[in-house]
């Protein structure tokens, strides 16, 4: 039998099995979630959560779907945070330092408190990727921020009002579009298809009787 633990959802006490996550524990307690629940597997950032263990001082942050309950956990979810995304035309900008200055000038107000990094449930070095953005090193900013799921905990802890996930997003798009070299083989293949170079080949396969296609499939060579 699974041991029960006491948790406090928005301050109200519930007794729940200790092997549940915060999300499934809230449901076990009777919540029908609409907010604060998305992919349930750590990819979408819908379930940012703040908690404190009874009797302890430290405030912790996590994803409700990826964190097991503990006895004495005081839980508040952060289902929405007013993140500040600036809009731009990706075709009209370029990977110059000025872009970040224009769109997200508040990154230069970073006071270096590192609260963003401490709060990140993905253990990203958030303050570091903001530093990369400040100096216009978008490639490094993109790579450092890559595993960001956009939960917004960093932004909620920031005294400078930075919307970190949006800074990372801009850097990644700049990097993917303008900094990393384009795939030459991809460009060539798109052209070949547009020129109709594969039309005959695919018609040949599609036009075969089903038993011949099966034969072809079952005996096809597989690249090592």
């Amino acid at each position, binding site marked *: 039998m699974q041991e029960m633990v006491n948790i406090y959802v928005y301050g109200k006490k519930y007794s729940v099995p200790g092997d549940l996550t915060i999300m499934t524990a809230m449901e076990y307690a009777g919540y029908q979630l609409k907010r604060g629940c998305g992919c349930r*597997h750590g990819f*979408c950032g819908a379930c940012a959560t703040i908690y404190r263990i009874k009797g302890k001082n430290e405030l912790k942050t996590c994803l409700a779907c990826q964190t097991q309950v503990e006895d004495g956990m005081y839980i508040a979810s952060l289902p929405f945070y007013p993140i500040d995304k600036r809009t731009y035309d990706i075709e009209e900008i370029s990977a110059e330092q000025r872009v970040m200055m224009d769109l997200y000038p508040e990154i230069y107000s970073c006071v270096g408190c590192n609260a963003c990094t401490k709060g990140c449930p993905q253990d990203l070095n958030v303050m570091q990727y903001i530093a990369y953005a400040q100096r216009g090193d978008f490639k490094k900013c993109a790579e450092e921020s*890559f595993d960001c*799921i*956009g939960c917004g905990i960093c932004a909620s802890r920031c005294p400078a009002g930075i919307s970190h996930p949006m800074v990372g997003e801009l850097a990644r798009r700049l990097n993917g579009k303008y900094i990393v070299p384009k*795939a030459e083989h991809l460009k060539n293949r798109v052209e070949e*298809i547009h020129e109709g170079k594969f039309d005959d080949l695919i018609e*040949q396969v599609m036009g075969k009787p089903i038993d011949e296609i099966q034969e072809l499939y079952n005996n096809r060579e597989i690249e090592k």
Partner: protein
Amino acid sequence: MYTLANMQESIKKVEATRAQRMANEPRRMTADEKDALLAAYHPDYKEEGFITLKVGPNKGEKVPTELGYLLESNSRILGVDIDLDKVDYDVDVLVIGAGGAGSSAAIEAHEAGANVMITTKLRIGDANTMMAEGGIQAADKENDSPAQHYLDAFGGGHFAARPELLRKLVMEAPDAISWLENLGVMFDKDENGRMVTTHGGGTSRKRMHACRDYSGAEIMRTLRDEVINRGIPVVEFSSAVELIKDDKGQVAGAVLQNMETGEYQVAKAKTVIIATGGAGRLHYNNFPTSNHYGATADGLILGYRAGAPLLYQDTIQYHPTGAAYPAQIFGALVTEKVRSLGAMLVNVDGEAFMHPLETRDVSAASIIRECSDDRNEGVETPQGKAVWLDTPMIDLLHGEGTIEKRIPAMFRMFMQYGIDMRKEPILVYPTLHYQNGGLEINGEGFTNTVNNLLVAGEAVGGIHGRNRLMGNSLLDVIVFGRDAGKAAAAKAKDVTLGKMNLDHVEKYAEILKEAGIDTGMVSPQLLPNYAGKRHL
């Protein structure tokens, strides 16, 4: 019986056979062996778990029980007085669903100059696209061709795919990747920009493109950013609960419901794209699922009630490797990329019981067989039996640091519970992953029965046949999403709407009554009901 000691004992056996296994690639099954395995162990091939539809376009056909009940239930708005003259949104193109397909469709419709809006019951990006980990296929390397891609997918899907749809999928794949690259998606590349590609189960060429193991997340957040940049209206927490038709019988919009206040709204549109995704949260056959919270087949219900037939609604994909341990992540996806990188499937005695890159239906059936009483080669866990996925092989094969670099999400997910997959194998068992079937469309993305109604993404049936290869769904949401957006925008120019009505809702209620069906439920379901339960 499950004990930690037994589990540790089994890990020792996996370690003991590792060197010998790494030197010998397991053989692939023959076509006959696969057929026999599927017939005996794959849930699709069993009678239980299905019912026969008594009404509607697919009357007399098999359907998963839970979906069948929803299809044969009445509308949520039957008997509700909705004023269709009070139009809240009036657009050219209405996109229902804000995942990969819906967002791609909206971007292309906007690009084509249409007045387009998206409605979604949760947030933009709350979708299975966001959770796709392993990658996206496209035949863009020199040793590959769209014809080879076609052959792999057609065979993997048991030769049941609609040829005209599969042709589009493979022929437009490189252009889809190029479109994403131009939007700024960060694919895994070498220093010269060449794509790093691997195998997936059932591929004959290495054509799996990835973005670490956040492939879907990277694509989805880029699409989301683009939708917002373009100023396309996205109405969140707003479910489409019914399609609206006009007096000519063509689709004319949808009734929306605010998920929080319950308020109804009317969206009028010249063309409507259903891009509502999958059904994992219906937990067919009581399986756990890798799907997002809103995967409840809503679009299938809406389309079916309006008269659009389903195709291959009786074929479901169980992803071979759902997490089986610990309990907190039971059913969560363990990406196929783990096997693409070399990890083997191993039983309780340390034997590699199959080639790790068979197609998904074959792999799932093989794992189920291994854990069945017939073989009794599964590892006992608190949730039932499972097999090992020998992850330490990855760093041994490709060098230290590969796991952290190529599959960081997997590493993070297991480390959260103290399991270091670099050093010890992980436990897996099939999880409900994908609906192979869905609404039937023609080559232009439209349904054949309801004028001006399009479908894109996982809600479509027929692109993949009766099983889907890894990396072809992430691809289909982009290819068919884009095409649907373009087609819907073009078509909207020629549409003149008549007077709107919800007559089909009442007509459906009468048909149910005549057939003597009363499920006591209403549909679409919108969200799973987990309140007050300990659920999967």
